């Protein structure tokens, strides 16, 4: 259920501009709100216990001042921003946090958060790095540990029935997000990149059922409206580090492109795989959150040739083939690779990903930035030049 008043995209904009407004109201009604970092904490387990998941995001327009006391400048500026907001009390309304081994700096920040912010509830899920059989088994054990601390915190039993119900509701959200992304396939797309990102950010700020209702409203509105994005020669896919602020996409769309697809964690990456309903729901969850989520932080085995050698192009196809599929399905004619400075897991991908995209004939450009609105200005010229290249 949403608050009375605005609906659809208007409501999305309101939430985007004041993310915590709704969860603070829910908290006033007695709900407990749990902050989570990135896409690896298993949200269904929170929802099943009537906890409201609230994603920890940064703020590109807020200078980092407090985090300098505990996170050095050579680490991911996004995580530094998240920590900075925490230290400034902007996440004080949270009843607890769950973090996962999304990347090295996230793992370490989980410990730092505990030391400096002393949350009443904190749990760390040590998500494995590979999809080995042993890693999958370990991941299920880790979810059992998470279940125990959640049960202890809430005083409620996390039954299989509750979990199945939560999985259904989250899967419904994933289906609705897919439906929204389908609306980006026409030319021109029915919904802009900026609007899509605002929706994605809103979803991270609401209980899942409210998010589903909002998505239905948005999809319906977008299908009916006549004033969507205009036709532009460039249809772009944007790949890389987390984007939780519209500034970058707004800049790209304002200079003559439609951003029609993304592969980022506040975007398709978080939603494009469903959880299978398995006899023990933890099996489906463990598999989805380790194996099905596609992000550079998870190492995927290469199929070796008969001689036992690794074939580079086959490896690239295994790792990035889904991007080629996205490009075809969304009729993309250019890709923007972007990563924050000091984001190692994305940084190492860049030459290989450029090789892959070059091999399938997709023009691309790599942009590095500092998670700061002011620092985006110099990138504008580069994007303009890129758009000229792809016509």
């Amino acid at each position, binding site marked *: 259920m949403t608050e009375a008043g605005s609906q659809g995209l208007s409501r999305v904009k309101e939430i985007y501009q004041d993310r915590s407004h709704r969860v603070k109201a829910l908290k006033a009604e007695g709900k407990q709100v749990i902050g989570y970092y990135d896409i690896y904490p298993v949200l269904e387990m929170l929802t099943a216990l009537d906890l409201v998941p609230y994603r920890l995001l940064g703020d590109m327009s807020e200078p980092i001042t407090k985090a*300098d*006391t*505990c*996170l*050095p400048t*050579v*680490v*991911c500026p996004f995580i530094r921003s998240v920590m900075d907001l925490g230290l400034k009390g902007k996440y004080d309304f949270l009843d607890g946090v769950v973090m996962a*081994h999304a*990347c*090295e*700096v996230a*793992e*370490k920040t*989980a*410990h*730092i958060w*505990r*030391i400096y912010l002393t949350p009443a509830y*904190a*749990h*760390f899920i*040590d998500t*494995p*790095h*590979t999809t*080995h*059989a*042993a*890693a999958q*088994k*370990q991941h299920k*054990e880790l979810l059992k*540990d998470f279940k*125990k*601390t959640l049960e202890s915190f809430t005083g409620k039993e996390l039954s299989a029935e509750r979990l199945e119900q939560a999985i259904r509701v989250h899967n419904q959200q994933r289906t609705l997000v897919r439906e929204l992304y389908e609306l980006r396939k026409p030319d021109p797309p029915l919904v802009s990149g900026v609007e899509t990102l605002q929706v994605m950010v809103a979803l991270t700020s609401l209980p899942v059922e409210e998010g589903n209702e909002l998505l239905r409203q948005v999809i319906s509105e977008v299908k009916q409206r006549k004033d969507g994005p205009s036709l532009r020669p460039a249809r772009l896919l944007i790949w890389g580090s987390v984007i939780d602020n519209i500034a970058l996409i707004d800049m790209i769309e304002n200079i003559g492109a439609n951003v029609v697809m993304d592969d980022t964690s506040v975007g398709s990456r978080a939603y494009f795989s469903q959880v299978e309903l398995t006899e023990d729901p933890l099996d489906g969850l463990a598999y989805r959150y380790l194996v099905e989520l596609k992000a*550079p*932080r998870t*190492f995927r085995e*290469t199929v*070796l040739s008969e001689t*036992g*050698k*690794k*074939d*580079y192009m086959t*490896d690239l196809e295994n790792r990035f083939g889904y991007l080629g599929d996205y490009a075809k399905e969304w009729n993309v004619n250019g890709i923007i690779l972007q*990563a924050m400075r*000091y984001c*190692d*897991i994305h*940084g*190492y*991908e*860049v*030459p*290989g990903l450029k*090789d892959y995209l070059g091999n399938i004939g997709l023009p691309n450009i*790599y942009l*590095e930035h500092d998670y700061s609105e002011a620092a985006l200005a110099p990138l504008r010229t580069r994007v303009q030049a890129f758009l000229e290249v792809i016509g």
Partner: protein
Amino acid sequence: MTDEKKKRAISRLKTMYPLRALIDGMYEQAVEASKDGKPVAWCMVNWWGGDVILRTMDVAAVYPEDYSAVCAAFGAAPAYLARSDSDGFPTHMCGYARNCLGYAAQMKDLGEIPPEAPMGGMPKPTLLLSSGFFCDTRYKWFQALGRYLDAPLWVLEMPHPGVKESRMEGVREHNINFLVEELREFIAFLEHLLGKKMDWDRLEEIVDDTIEMNRVWHQVNELRKARPCPMHSRDFWSSMPASLYMAADPKVTTDLYQKMYDEVKYMVDNHIGAIPEEKYRLAFAELPPWHSLGFFNQLAERGWNFVVESWAYHPPKPIDLSKVSNPLERIANLTYQYFSGYFEDAFKVGDWWGYFAHPYLEFVKEYQCDGIFLHPLLTCRTATNHLLVVQDQLMRKLKVPSLVVEGDIVDLKLFDPADALRKAETFEETMSHYRTVRKEMGLAW
């Protein structure tokens, strides 16, 4: 000041040289093995689990992390870094990785080891053994090497529980099982790749020798708590790779560590320090500027003795594994002990960063340090992430000050020894001040 004087400022242990030679020999042996058609692995430090298996399967191993330090020390790194940069790898990434990527690119172009490669170079590998331990770079780097090498890659996992989570019922067991199963999967991968079977009896022997090697190495470092400290960090850094990289038969390494123990014990018994006059005892975090190690001689002349280093490069606290019958479980327990050996202490005081950060609190107390030299590495998240927390905790809890000097392990452009020395001079007053403060607080040093 002459170079000769600089060298004398720190008395190097005689028993260090053969340990260092083991590492140097590792490259030569790998090149020979490659020429003889034997398998060669490029490995990440994996804290022994993968090493013992490779050794048992007669795979010659070299460690690009160490080799990048070698390239830095020999001045070969800048060209490799430049190659990596020109191939599009972001310049903020790990100096070791960028050096290795550049090296591999050169090797691919030439079809052979680059002629300028120090110590004979690293031969083309049969396989890559990566590790999920600590940092993302340590598997993403080897994955990126696929651009230049057709060697298959195996990533060995390592659990990283939080301090609180590690205390939950059943967590230790499933983490150890995870490690053991990971090692089994790696063995199956190797058996398939090499077409040979694991010799389990030999593995058992190598595992036991590895445990003993680490026990003796730990004992050597325990002796460094003495005043004056008989062994400077430079000797630690020269000797640690023999354990960390399993550079030789662990029996041979154990014997050399035992000789080092004897030498250091003699110095302790006779009150002989590593430097002429120990005025200040310091801890060092994290890895040193390999390209500028002479800098420590200048500090030694000022009476700075570096008595302990990062937990990450120290052997695990000894653990009784005599009742663990399976060799894979034994080595898994050793690795897990390495990672979580300080968790119990951390838990007791509510310190939630049980590795990297908390051990410094223990070390600084036990080794009675007057200060800590923090060396944030501008291209390494892993070695830098925790330094501000360490700085803060050491001051708040123990009134031990930190000297922060930024630099890099490979890229010498990022380290300014003259500036560091200027900072060091003023830091002496700070250390003296906090000695008084600690005394007033009733602390032991």
